[in-house]
């Protein structure tokens, strides 16, 4: 990046950090930012300053949260819902005289669950991507060194396969590592928990997992891992590779 660019863009970065750059100048700066880590770093610094200016101590109006919460509950049709909630609906009602209707309902439910599972994994994957490999690794190290954390070992009944999970008191957990064989392309390890008698998905781990964050809820008593098609499945479709008791 040459000197002219930085001198020229330096003033624009400060203006941009205050959202005060006219729209016709924004695209020019943003295209430069896409290629210039130095300017991006400076912009982040300037945005920190701007955020402190805007950090006032008023209270939000009463009822605002209620209105937000009501929007969460009336999600659009393609909106995934919490894992625990949708897993509780995975067994459709069975009517003796409506076998065709049941079959159709099962297909619809499984299709919806598959879609939601992919969406769930996309959401978690996005955050993991934004955290970056180094960021998750640091968090895992901090969790391991945290005296309040607990180690959970997942073991196999018929082999020596083992996996190491660390769980913090607030339910934050990390798949640290394992000695599982890496899966071929198109497959992934998927983590499950037993919660109140139901098997719920905690997300996919990837074909060769390490440093994967997930969350343990108080109702969960057992962690299990299976090998599944890439993207994960709504319910386990293969035998459990390893399992271990957990609690928060």
């Amino acid at each position, binding site marked *: 990046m040459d*000197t002219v660019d*930085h*001198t020229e863009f*330096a003033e624009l970065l*400060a*203006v941009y950090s*205050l*959202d*005060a*750059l*006219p729209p016709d100048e924004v695209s020019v700066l943003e295209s430069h930012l896409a290629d210039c880590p*130095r300017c991006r*770093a*400076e912009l982040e*610094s*300037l*945005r*920190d*300053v*701007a*955020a*402190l*200016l*805007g*950090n*006032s*101590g*008023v*209270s*939000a*109006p009463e009822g*605002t949260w209620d209105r*937000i*919460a009501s*929007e*969460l509950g009336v999600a659009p049709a393609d909106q995934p*819902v*919490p*894992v625990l909630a949708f897993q509780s609906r995975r067994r459709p009602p069975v009517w003796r005289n409506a076998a065709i209707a049941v079959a159709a309902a099962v297909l619809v439910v499984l299709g919806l669950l598959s879609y939601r599972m992919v969406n*769930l994994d996309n*959401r*978690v994957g*996005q*955050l993991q*991507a*934004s*955290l970056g490999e180094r*960021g998750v690794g640091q*968090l895992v190290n901090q969790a391991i060194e945290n005296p309040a954390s607990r180690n959970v070992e997942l073991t196999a009944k018929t082999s020596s396969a083992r996996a190491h999970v660390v769980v*913090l*008191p*607030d*339910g*934050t957990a990390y798949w640290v590592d394992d000695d599982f064989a890496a899966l071929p392309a198109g497959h992934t390890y998927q983590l499950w928990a037993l919660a109140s008698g139901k098997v719920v998905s905690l*997300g996919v781990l990837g074909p060769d997992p390490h440093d994967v964050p*997930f*969350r343990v*809820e*108080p109702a969960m008593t057992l962690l299990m891992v299976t090998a599944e098609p890439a993207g994960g499945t709504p319910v386990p479709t293969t035998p459990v590779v390893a399992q271990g008791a957990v609690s*928060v």
Partner: protein
Amino acid sequence: MNRDLANASDVTLAMAISRWDQEALAEVYRRNAGPVFGLARRVLGDAAVAEEVVQEVFLRLWHEPGRYDPERGSLRTFLLSQVHSRSVDMLRSDTARRQREVRDARSTASGQYDVEHEFLDIAVAEGVRDAMGVLQPGERSAIELAYFGGHTYREVASILGEPEGTIKSRIRSGMRRMQSSLAAKGLAVGKMQPAEENP
């Protein structure tokens, strides 16, 4: 639920939100809604519209948690940045209102920032007050009009009757001065590039 979200980190909360945990979003709201609403109201000058923006920003976090990058800063900074940007967009989309506010701003261009009464965190309040204190009067007016008034730098130049290049320079130098002051108190984590650009 017995989970102790009250002490959870931003990363933990963001991870929980990515798994559709409404309690985690409620905790993020509890911690940040006040400042987020305060900034929207200050920029928009209308509590009802500000509340709409607050709802929009939190719902966007719910639907797109991956937009938050924990390595770049706190959730508070992220949400304030989001709400400011959205508030300014709304302000600029309302042409008649905009013209009225530009007119009003001409007569009240300075002395708008009552920092002593608006900050929740005393350490932050003192840090920001000190940082504002190091600004030259022209820098302060330009930054206040741009940030809290939601004006472009060209509009700020028109309001203050100064050349556009002067306003850009003042915003730049003022932000640098504040960043140095805040950094000295450990309040701004970012690092600015060396002052006079490249050798």
